[in-house]
Every structure is written in structure tokens, then in C-alpha cells.
């Protein structure tokens, strides 16, 4: 066996093990959604598409799904519009405000959800009481809480593309700030925007604590519906499996299309990754 082949085989084995680890739970969920009865055996007693039909025809579940998609999509849109220009500014124009951005990005992870939700309710009650209990408040709260994923991804992409040097070069070419952002900065950080956007979408889609505390049952999303379905009175376990699998597939396909479609490079997402980045 040649020296070069051993690592190849090793890496194939590692990849296979990882793929199995990730795929098995989803496969189990899929089988469960198709099972007639599955209790004490390794594989179900029989199969049926009955739960898929009932789940997809359930207007309540469909409504929750649509609300979740729209909410998560809107959160991504807000975050992209706010975070990309702000990160550019912090990165290129005024590096001193980076410390504020870094600290703000840690808050959602450092504070417990209850404290965050209560803080948002308090703030909104003080300055915009009309927003209390509305989906709009929920959307703004999501944007505020999930932005770090996008911030880190965009910040990492800016470091990788050496956006400072590129925008200075564009400036000496006579470009205005808007031209620089549109023609030079954005095309060179799409990878970061896409991978950060997917994370914001996924975490918003799965958000439970905030929606529970800010609007409750008046604006049912998939996680709220799922929690309800888990309660014994409803007992819709197979339907829950259907919606879990569907959600996963939607996110997976969306990520795959975006990542391959934009030729996005992998961006170092973790905050620590920037410690080793090269600065001129």
C-alpha cells in the first residue's frame, strides 16, 4: 500500500462515519413518518403514507409552516440589510466600533432566553407599546438575537477577501462608497453572506423560547405546533415526524442550492477563527 493511499482510505472512512452519524437520525424520522406501527421491532410492522397526507392537508400545520418560512426569511433580509453595511463600516472605516459589535454579538449567547425575552418586552412596552404581541416585534427580536451568525460569517469573509485593501484600491480608482460596496465588497463576500444567512434562517425557523414568550399561541410557528403535537392529548407523533423531515429537507436543499449556486467558499464562522487571520 502506498503512503498516499492510506490517508485517502482513512478520510473516506471518517467521511462515511460522519455521514452515517448525520443521516441516521433523519432516516429514523423518515421511517417513523411512514410506519404503520413501530414499537418493539427493529423495523416497522408495515408502511403507510397516511400521515404524510394528513399532515400536508392539515391547514393548521400548513399555516404554521408558512408563517415560519416567512418569519425566518424576513429575519434574514433584515439582518443582511443591517449587518453587511455595519460590518463593512466597522471593518474598513472605523475599526474602533468593532469592539462594540463584538460585544453585542456575544449578548444573545451570554444571557438566558428568559432575560432576553423579558428585556425585549420591557423595551417594547416602554418605547413602542403598539408592537407588543405582534409578529413584527417577533421579527425584530429574531433579527436582534440571531444576527451574530451573520456578523461572524461576514466579518470572516471580509478578512479572507482583504476588503480593506480592495476598498482602498477602489477608492483610488475613483469609486464612490456605494459603488465600492456594490461592485467590490458584496461580490467578494457572498460566501460569508450565504453561509451566515443560512444559519440565521435555520436558527430563526427553529426558535421556540422567544416566540413562546413574545406572542405565544396567537402566531403559531412550526416549533409551537410541534410542542403542541408532542402533548399527549394531541398525540400527533407521526405528523411531527413528517414536518421535522420536511423542515430538514427544505433547509438542506436551500443550503445546497445557495452554496453551490454562489460558489461560496467555506467561511470560518467561529469568533476565535479571526485571531489567526492575517492583517497587513
Amino acid at each position, binding site marked *: 500500500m502506498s503512503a498516499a493511499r492510506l490517508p485517502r482510505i482513512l478520510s473516506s472512512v471518517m467521511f462515511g462515519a460522519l455521514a452515517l452519524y448525520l443521516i441516521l437520525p433523519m432516516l429514523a424520522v423518515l421511517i417513523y413518518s411512514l410506519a404503520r406501527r413501530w414499537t418493539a421491532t427493529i423495523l416497522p410492522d408495515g408502511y403507510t403514507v397516511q400521515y404524510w397526507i394528513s399532515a400536508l392537508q392539515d391547514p393548521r400545520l400548513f399555516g404554521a409552516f408558512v408563517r415560519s418560512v416567512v418569519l425566518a426569511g424576513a429575519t434574514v433580509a433584515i439582518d443582511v440589510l443591517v449587518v453587511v453595511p455595519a460590518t463593512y463600516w466597522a471593518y474598513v472605516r472605523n475599526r474602533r466600533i468593532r469592539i462594540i459589535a463584538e460585544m453585542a454579538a456575544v449578548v444573545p449567547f451570554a444571557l438566558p432566553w428568559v432575560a432576553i425575552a423579558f428585556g425585549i418586552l420591557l423595551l417594547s412596552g416602554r418605547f413602542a407599546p403598539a408592537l407588543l404581541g405582534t409578529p413584527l416585534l417577533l421579527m425584530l427580536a429574531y433579527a436582534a438575537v440571531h444576527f451574530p451568525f451573520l456578523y461572524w460569517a461576514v466579518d470572516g469573509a471580509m478578512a479572507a477577501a482583504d476588503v480593506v*485593501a480592495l476598498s482602498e*484600491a477602489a477608492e*483610488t480608482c*475613483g469609486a464612490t462608497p456605494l459603488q465600492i460596496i456594490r*461592485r467590490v465588497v458584496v461580490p467578494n463576500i457572498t460566501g460569508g453572506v450565504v453561509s451566515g444567512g443560512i444559519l440565521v434562517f435555520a436558527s430563526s425557523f427553529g426558535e421556540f423560547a422567544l416566540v413562546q414568550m413574545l406572542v405565544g399561541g396567537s402566531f403559531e410557528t412550526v416549533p409551537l405546533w410541534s410542542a403542541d403535537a408532542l402533548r399527549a392529548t394531541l398525540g400527533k407523533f407521526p405528523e411531527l415526524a413528517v414536518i421535522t423531515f420536511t423542515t430538514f429537507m427544505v433547509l438542506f436543499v436551500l443550503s445546497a442550492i445557495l452554496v453551490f449556486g454562489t460558489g461560496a467558499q467555506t467561511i470560518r464562522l467561529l469568533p476565535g477563527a479571526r485571531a489567526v487571520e492575517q492583517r497587513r
Partner: protein
Amino acid sequence: MSEIVLRDVTKYFGSVHALDGISLEVAPGELVALLGPSGCGKTTLLRSVAGLLQPDSGQILIGGKDVTGMPTRERPIGMVSQSYALFPNMTLRNNIAFPLVVRNVPASEITRRVSELLDLVQLDAQADRYPKQVSAGQQQRTALVRALAPQPDVLLLDEPLSALDALVRHQLRDEIRRIQQAVRTTTIFVTHDQSEAMAIADRVAVMHRGRIEQIARPPELYDRPGTPFSAAFVGSRNALELPVRDGQVSLGSAFAVRPPAGSGIRVVIFFRPEDVEIITDGRGHPATLEVKIFLGATTRLHLVTDVDGKQARIYADVPSRQAASLEPGSTLGIRVDPANVRVFSVEG
């Protein structure tokens, strides 16, 4: 009238005095090389002219117009940075077109101008490749014509050749000079390589610790350095600190010169390796040959000699034919024509 004028430009970074009262005038069409060691403020000076940073005080004029507070994009400049900073998302052609596109130049005019520029640097064949897909030299030439595309009044080059290997570097150095002569754009060329500065520039400005120590034509700078720093930095001179005795400075029987008026009791003297004469008939100041380094037509000798009671190393460049007969370890005589010895009083 001068195309570029700097008047007493000062810049601090915290406590670092990056520019210490710089005054400089560059004539229209002239190429001035800014020469100095790392950290002396070359980039800071260039970026001030470009408007990428704001000096703390002083005035910058381009074409007689005060541009001190003017944003970069409004200044009539083109710039090439050390890293080239080509846009990775654009082909070479689109990189070169960029300064014209952002100025809303008509498309037909852009096409014409870009193909003219591609022609100038022989990049037609690579025009539709991305920066990553071409060599460093081709990237450098692209960056150069991108800077020239809008026909700027002033061209600013920050160590444009330092990332290239020796052969390409010499080729491109000559090419930059050829293009600069053809388009006659007033140019500031930053480098820390003295031979590069000498080869390319009409005048060389020697920078040291945020100041311009001397500005002169290359031959004059080479023969008559005005300060100890330019003497040491240009021409890789031998530098020795010697005492003044009886109104004279001497290195044994190698040379004896008069120090400048007002010197203290010690002076620093400089002389170039090629001005050291090797004598083998027993005369001259004795020195031991340590190492011979073959450089082609000449050979560099590392000599150890007694200077004012201490051992010091002196370099001598001699024709390789003469060096062939010299054996390492042997003792030779050295002599330097006093006309080629520069004397400066010891500072502070």
C-alpha cells in the same frame, strides 16, 4: 511649476512620528523614488498624497491645487499598492476598466482605452482571465495599467516590485520606466532597494525616520551622500568611527583626510567597497582576508583590520581576476583614495 508639492507634512500614529515635517516638490513628468528602510514612513507619505490618510498638519498640492482635505476619489491620482489589490471578482480586462466604469465613461470609449492599455503591457492573451489565474508579474502589470487607465496627473507606486523574483523584477522595473516615459505621468515610486531607486528615478529622495534626508539625482547621491544615513544606506558603504588627531582622520596608512570644520573629537567616515584598493607589495594598511565571495565580474573581500585599537570588518570589491590570486588567511595592504572618503561628525 511643480506637479506635486508637500509642505511641512506631519503625521503621528500615537507616539510614532511617521512623517516629521516632510517638504517635497516633484516636477511635471518627473519620477521621484522614495528610498528608505522599513518603517521610515514611505507608505505613510504615499497614502497622504493619495488621501487614504489625513496628515496631522501641513499641506499637499497636486497641479497647484490644494488637495489636503479632498477625498481620495476626487484626487487626480492612480495608485498601485504593494499587494496590487486587484479585484478577485473581475477579469483583468474588467479590473482595468473599473476606474473608467465608475466615472461613467461611454462603453465604446472604455473598450478602446482598455485594449490600448492591454496592448501597452502585452496582456491581450490573458485579458479574460481572473487575477488568480495569472502570474505575479502579470498581476503587477494589470495593477499598473489599471492605475493609468483614467489618465491621472499623478501615479503613486508603493514597492510595486517587491513581491516578484529577481529576474521579473528587473524586467518590470525597466518596463515601468519605459511606460512612465511614454505617458509622462508624474510619479512617486516607493522602494527600499537602492539599486532599484537609482535605476528608475530622475531623482531619489532618501527617507529616514519620517524625514527626507537628501534628494538628489542618482549619480550625485551615489558619489556625494549628504548625510551619514544616506552614505550608509546608498552604495552599501563601509562605515568606521575614528578619532580626530592633529586635525586629521586616518586609518593607518590606508588614508588620511581632514574632517569638516566644527567636528568633535570623533567622526564617522564612509567609503565604498569598490574604492578600496588592494596592494600586495607590503605597503598600505594591513588587513587579513577572511572570506572571498564571487559576484561575477567582481569579487567581494571580507577583510579584518585593526581600527583604532579594535578589530573591524571592511568590505572591498575587486576585479575577480585580481582576487583569484588572493588566499583567505593571508595579510594584504589596503588603501583608499581620500577623494572617495566621506567624513561626518558624530551626531548627538
